[in-house]
């Protein structure tokens, strides 16, 4: 890490252990800004063998629908350069099984749970969101309006400002007012700021950025797409510059007053403290680790330790002081 330690101006040197990592999530202050990205940590049980879940800022669950869903046929995954494609297809047992079997277990371990929800119709989103009211351990709802593993990509709500608005507004209306509602956005749109604006105007308390980008790989042995579903979602470091661009653009639009300011949970290929800091400087008020968990399930705590050192080396006493710093000199050029 020594090669990374650069001072910013005359900033004082701060001991890493003195850096305040606390981060906001709606009415809550989290002990740190690190979450798991949805779909990359299951419901926490298996990850808990490697990371004490109460040491994470939040645990974001795999996306939950109102009913059981088998997901796609195998193969569901293909490795690509610095990334992977997946088409899992939102496999899950549904909201009732989650509330009955998984949530109490998570709550007992002190996990702060950001529950990712989805539906194929608006009512399915609201049905799932409503079921979470009053449940232990839940600290927020992430509305997955951007899952790529649906039969018809044209149905992705987050590709259209009007449908994004409708879903977020409906969820916000039924969810416990104490629970922040985050909208999860896709990068596969012409203008992500337009979608972000629609979600915030609909009442989103925050934005999760970004979901996977749609990709496809072909198996040269079978001469067919490598995934049974054909296309899949690209994740991992290959996605990171796109994700950082999206966070930067939306944060810039907030600074310019074109979107009301809400926290952004940044994600897309984070695998070390540098990556987490990059998202933060672009405007993320929290960061989530996804595909890196597959390579190293213990990654979150390592990333946090690295982030703490990088902040200290730059004289940043508080994590929140770093949020959006990259915009100081020029907040217009790439927005």
């Amino acid at each position, binding site marked *: 890490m020594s090669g990374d330690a650069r001072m910013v101006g005359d900033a004082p040197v701060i001991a890493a252990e003195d850096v305040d990592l606390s981060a906001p999530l709606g009415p809550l202050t989290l002990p740190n800004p690190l979450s798991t990205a949805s779909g990359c940590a299951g419901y926490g049980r298996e990850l808990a063998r490697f990371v004490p879940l109460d040491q994470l800022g939040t645990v974001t669950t795999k996306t939950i629908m109102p009913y059981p869903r088998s997901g796609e046929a195998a193969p569901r995954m293909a490795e690509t350069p610095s990334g992977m494609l997946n088409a899992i297809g939102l496999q899950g047992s549904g909201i009732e099984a989650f509330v009955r079997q998984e949530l109490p277990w998570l709550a007992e371990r002190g996990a702060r749970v950001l529950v990712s929800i989805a539906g194929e119709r608006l009512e399915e989103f609201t049905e799932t969101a409503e079921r979470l009211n009053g449940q232990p351990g839940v600290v927020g709802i992430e509305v997955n309006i951007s899952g790529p593993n649906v039969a018809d990509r044209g149905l992705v709500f987050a590709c259209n400002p009007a449908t994004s608005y409708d879903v977020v507004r409906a969820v916000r209306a039924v969810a416990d007012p104490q629970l922040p509602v985050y909208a999860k956005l896709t990068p596969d749109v012409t203008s992500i700021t337009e979608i972000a604006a629609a979600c915030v105007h609909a009442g989103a308390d925050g934005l999760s950025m970004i979901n996977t980008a749609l990709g496809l790989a072909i198996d040269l042995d079978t001469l067919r797409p490598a995934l049974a579903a054909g296309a899949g979602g690209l994740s991992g470091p290959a996605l990171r510059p796109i994700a950082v661009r999206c966070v930067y653009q939306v944060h810039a639009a907030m600074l310019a007053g074109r979107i009301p300011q809400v926290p952004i949970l940044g994600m897309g290929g984070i695998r070390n403290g540098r990556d987490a800091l990059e998202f933060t400087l672009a405007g993320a008020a929290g960061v989530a680790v996804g595909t890196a968990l*597959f390579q190293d*399930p213990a990654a979150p705590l390592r990333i946090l330790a690295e982030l703490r050192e990088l902040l200290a080396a730059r004289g940043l006493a508080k994590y929140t002081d770093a949020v959006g710093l990259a915009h100081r000199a020029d907040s217009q050029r790439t927005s």
Partner: protein
Amino acid sequence: MANPLQLRAEVLANRSEGAYHRLVLRAPGVPERVRPGHFATLAVGGESSALLLRRAFSIHRADPVEGTVELVLAAHGAGTRELVASPVGAELDLIAPLGTPFPLPDGPVSALLVGDGYGSAPLFALGAELLRRGGQVGFILGAATADRLYGVDQARALTPDVLVLTEDGSLGLTGRVTDPLAQAVEAIDATVVHAGGPMPTLAGVSAIAAELGIRVHTSVEAEMACGVGICMSCVLPVVGEDGRSRFVRSCTDGPVFDGARVRWADLGTVPADLEGAAAMGVHG
């Protein structure tokens, strides 16, 4: 689920064995936890490697006295080629043990152990354990070619009942492991079959075991992204205790499955009667 450790494991030996490589890794604390059928994963390259996904290998041997685990690797692609090239003294990021091992009987049984290619790797520790419990074992080991057989000498060190087959006839009988299976079960009066190898082989072994009316436990070779149960990429359609079929994970519910419960013919599909299939637009 196993209770795994993640650690930097030093490569103590890296030997070429036919078409494969046997890695001996120093992994303190791991061998005591290993049961036959468990597997391990290795990360490829360092933190900045462009190959993100860990590679999974069944654990061949675990030695609590030496503090070592041994894995058998086949260089299939860029990631395994890199691992196979690991020099003695290198450190690899190891997670082990993982998965659900072969079920062990309380008392002596007669078991037939069937390995196709390096799918045989976990069967020798299993065979030794079954013998230790007073049972009897026989082996059928097969591969496409002689250099792709694994562990013939190890099998012979455990029992004289070893049948070897290659598809090209370069060693042993000509044919596949399923060809002499029924006869071998009868010869040693086996009440259970344990098998490791590619899916089509395991499907064939399971079908024959079903015809013979005996139990079969199969260790599947499924592609995994995480190996620890969080990614959901390695699923198979399996019939549960309640009679309902579900996609279950090879990494946590397996890699060892009751071969009679795996819906081998439906691999790569979403069967209409699978739980949650209707939500995918699949109807019976």
